[in-house]
């Protein structure tokens, strides 16, 4: 689960990671009132849960209250990658002398949390990693000890010449690690971590902030779970989550209902391979309850792009006749008239076939058969 920059910054401040002086505003009026306690120039930053707001014009610097007003007006309500901007962060600007990157994430290959640092901050770190991997410094964080000061020091002296800055860096990375472990994160990131001067002393400050939590661990952190912004999520995905379905909306026209994540992806791939376009990923899990089937069909068909549906079930514990019955019930209750192809194989597949004989549902024998039939139904 992602949270907004301003929320992440608040967590940073609680962990003694320095940030700019800043305030969140939900409206123009609020922005104007908030600006009174800040010193110009002020940067106005769109708060959205996707990257690329800068390029979209979601970050602008105001040198006075008039500019601020016009920036806030233009940013609030802006659409960035499908998300509407509903709040802006107003932050005092600093004179940035250099930009660094520092983040902590899980390295699957190393089976560990890692601290990633780079002198190439302010840029897309993934791109840096691909084009100039030598600019990326990676440190494995021992899971039982946490990040040790010497580890930050090893990195710090590669980034900075100044012992005070290294100590700054040690403190920031240590606190970042505490956030990562305390709150079960999958990512905490400062990009850019900016170098600036106050009274001739060089200091580091978090100019941006990103925190992503491990969904599986949110039950341990109810206060973090409460930060979830349901409004920013795809409504159909929210609905699916409620029904205990794993659903991801895509752009195609062939809806799919599958049991199992791997099989669901394979089904999408096969649709594409045979010239179709999958409308979604949907894993109904191990259960074959009619309620789940109904919720799945309802979510699928609410997507107006969907023109046909493929049901692909490998029944092991799941019984195919249960699925068939659930499907028929869902179609009736939800008044579904779309062409549906069902491929139900495994436990009680013959019973399922019999159940569907007199229905408008087309029965398919294999995955490939099902995919071909659903594409034919669509184009037919």
């Amino acid at each position: 689960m992602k949270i907004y920059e301003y929320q992440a910054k608040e967590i940073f401040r609680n962990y003694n990671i320095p940030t700019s002086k800043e305030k969140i505003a939900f409206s123009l009026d609020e922005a104007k009132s908030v600006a009174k306690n800040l010193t110009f120039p002020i940067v106005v930053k769109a708060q959205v849960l996707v990257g690329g707001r800068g390029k979209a014009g979601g970050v602008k610097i105001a040198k006075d209250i008039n500019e601020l007003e016009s920036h806030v007006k233009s940013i609030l309500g802006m659409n960035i990658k499908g998300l509407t901007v509903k709040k802006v962060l107003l932050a005092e600007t600093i004179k940035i002398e250099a930009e660094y990157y520092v983040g902590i994430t899980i390295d699957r290959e190393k089976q560990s949390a890692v601290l990633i640092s780079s002198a190439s901050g302010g840029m897309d770190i993934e791109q840096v990693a691909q084009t100039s991997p030598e600019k990326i410094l990676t440190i494995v964080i021992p899971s039982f000890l946490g990040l040790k000061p010497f580890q930050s020091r090893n990195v710090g002296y590669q980034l900075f010449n100044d012992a005070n800055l290294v100590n700054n860096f040690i403190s920031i990375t240590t606190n970042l690690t505490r956030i990562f472990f305390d709150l079960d994160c999958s990512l905490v990131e400062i990009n850019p971590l900016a170098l600036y001067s106050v009274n001739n002393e060089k200091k580091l400050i978090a100019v941006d902030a990103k925190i992503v939590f491990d969904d599986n661990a949110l039950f341990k952190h109810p206060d973090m779970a409460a930060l979830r912004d349901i409004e920013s999520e795809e409504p159909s995905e929210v609905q699916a989550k409620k029904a205990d379905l794993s659903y991801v909306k895509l752009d195609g026209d062939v809806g799919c209902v599958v049991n199992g994540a791997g099989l669901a992806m394979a089904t999408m791939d096969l649709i594409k391979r045979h010239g179709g376009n999958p409308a979604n990923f949907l894993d109904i899990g191990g259960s074959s309850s009619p309620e789940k089937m109904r919720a799945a069909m309802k979510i699928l068909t609410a997507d107006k792009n969907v023109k046909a549906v493929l049901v692909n079930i490998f029944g092991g514990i799941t019984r195919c006749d249960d699925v068939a019955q659930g499907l028929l019930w869902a179609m009736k209750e939800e008044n579904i008239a779309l062409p549906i192809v069902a491929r139900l194989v495994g436990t009680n597949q013959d019973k399922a076939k019999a159940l569907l004989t007199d229905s408008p549902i087309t029965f398919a024998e294999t995955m490939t058969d099902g995919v071909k039939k659903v594409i034919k139904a669509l184009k037919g």
Partner: protein
Amino acid sequence: MAILINENTKLVVQGITGRDGSFHTQQMMEYGTKVVAGVTPGKGGSDVNGVPVFNTVRQAKEETYANSSIIFVPAQFAPDAIYEAVDAEIDLIVCIAEGIPTLEMVKILTFLKGKKTRLVGPNSAGIISPGLCKVGILPALAFKKGKVGVVSRSGTLTYEIASHITKAGYGESTVIGIGGDPIIGTNFVDCLQLFQADKQTEAIVIIGEIGGTDEEKAADFIIKNMTKPVFGFIAGQTAPADKRMGHAGAIIAGGKGTAKEKIQAFEKAGITVIYEPEEITDKLSKVM
């Protein structure tokens, strides 16, 4: 010979009195698995389908000589269940439980280093050595004793592909679900190594998916160490970036872990890539 589990497997079911635990205990016993004990704290002294229930794994092992364990307890309690089985020196732990926080798994794997216990999973469908033993939730009907080793990050997709192998008459030596989580105890390479050494196994099928680099590491390993023919399938070619596709581990994060990269790695390693599950039959027929 099969790998990991066979007729000598003596299984303890952790979380035997739960809904899934009791149901699959019955399924496994019907398949012929020697389920010797169950563990549910507080239920010690009772039994499930004639299987004695103990309060602790240690007790269960002392009384029944269990050497393997399957974990059905909810994610919240699963780490403690794993530690308990490791502490009791169980040889093989198969963790079915899904939803264990990633950092808990990182700790568990660090703890396991140097220990003799092997962990499969979490979020695994389990293991089956057809005709000999089943430790997991895989449906018996998809499998038959034979000569193809199958290792997979997925559940139903595995059944799907295995069922074609079964139908074609080749059958499987052992089928392993290594689990759909980002951090898991046993990976592709571990299984490939075992299959390479296993006499019963004549060919191997790897079923991968987007996320991580386990498939790439498998490809590297195959180039250097494998002589048996290997077939590969990768799910998620149409999956968008940064979206978790059901499994916690099936996510293209930071542009890494795409199906394209994995298929390329497979091809480079001389793995026969299949693009539709039913293709496996044809491809296998070329080498068997």
